[in-house]
């Protein structure tokens, strides 16, 4: 059987889900023998490849770069997994949505002007920092998602349970505390 091509991606989140992925410890060695990791913040690959079997998506969709890459990932991937609470619910990054339709101006004002100790100004040079979206969105609000693996972060044991089922060719099913938010 051809080795599964797996990707992981890091959008608006703290990288804690990727840390939890690394907490798989020796299972990572088993995994390396069974799959090809073709795109991830933990490998050096600049362009998301074609024909990916499964992608673990960490983080909420916060800016234009996230949005563009997510659409590319959907087009090039068979199975998408919302990986962790930010991807599943928006979580902490989505708390800015509570500030209403003008939240982008508000958060930039707060971060770059009010809390600046020197030289307060908003970054405005085009093409350097991606523009924030008006609302932070969970992944499934933008594209169809096959599976959800909540948790902040999802415990390594749950990631292992999920991936083991995928590798066995069964439909992954998690239940009870395995799908606990937070």
């Amino acid at each position, binding site marked *: 059987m051809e080795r599964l091509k797996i990707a992981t991606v890091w959008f608006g989140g703290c990288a804690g889900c990727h840390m939890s992925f690394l907490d798989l410890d020796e299972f990572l060695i088993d995994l390396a023998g069974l799959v090809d990791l073709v795109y991830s913040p933990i490998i050096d690959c600049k362009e998301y490849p074609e024909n990916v079997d499964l992608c673990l998506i960490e983080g909420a969709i916060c800016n234009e770069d996230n949005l563009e890459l997510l659409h590319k990932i959907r087009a090039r991937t068979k199975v998408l997994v*919302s990986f962790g*609470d930010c991807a*599943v*619910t*928006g*979580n*902490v990054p*989505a*708390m800015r*949505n*509570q*500030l*209403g339709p003008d939240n982008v101006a508000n958060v930039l004002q707060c971060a770059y002007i009010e809390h600046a100790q020197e030289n307060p100004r908003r970054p405005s040079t085009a093409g350097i920092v991606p523009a924030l979206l008006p*609302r932070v969105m*969970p992944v*499934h*609000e933008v594209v169809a*998602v096959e599976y*959800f*693996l*909540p948790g*902040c972060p999802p415990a390594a044991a749950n990631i292992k349970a999920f991936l083991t089922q995928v590798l066995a060719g069964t439909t992954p099913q*998690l*239940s*009870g*505390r*395995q*799908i*606990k*938010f*937070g």
Partner: protein
Amino acid sequence: MAAKTLTIDGTQISAENHITVLQAATEAGVKIPTLCHLEGVYDVGACRLCLVEVKGTAKLLPACTTRVYEGMEVATDSERLRKYRRMTLELLFAERNHVCAVCVSNGHCELQTLAYSLGMDHVRYDYCSPKWGVDATHRLFGMDHNRCILCTRCVRACWHIEGAGTKNVAGRGGKSMIITDLNEPWGNSETCTACGKCVSACPTGALSAKGSTVSEMQHDRSKLEFIVNAREKKQWSV
């Protein structure tokens, strides 16, 4: 007192007249998910988690406010009920800002526990992300409206266990909110006895003891249970 004979999930049971389907099910060892129900205070049927199917009625009925009757046939678990319970939970999560990861009650929350117990791994509805505040004016307790599900357990505990009548509900629909007295800051309340029964009663992280941080708030029901037991059964167990 006349007894009624009914079936719950196909099992015939006999129940005291005038008790609710929820009470009859609990006595028969059948577990129905609940959220606004609290032992010792009257039921209001607010959360709709305990909806059951009753033969002869197309509507789903809340087990906590529906009385048993002779020959009643109740189903507490079905594909349809699971669908509506999950929908109800998702709507509760979408309505306010339940960010479990940064909640005082993370790991000890009835809403969170019900969500994973009933298989809710994501919310299909758009989050409303409303702007709600936190009342931290009380010297001992805090009220975070972002995490309130309007179950009114705190109001009922305040009025009917403590008898203070400090907590109330104001507004309508999704804009309803729990208020203190006539919408005063909690710390200014002259009626609040600072007994903490509202905090004990709260199923989520909406009411908490001051000083608790993420995952630290566990709602201790023992004080409420002690008083209710003493009142209803005249047992002053320590």
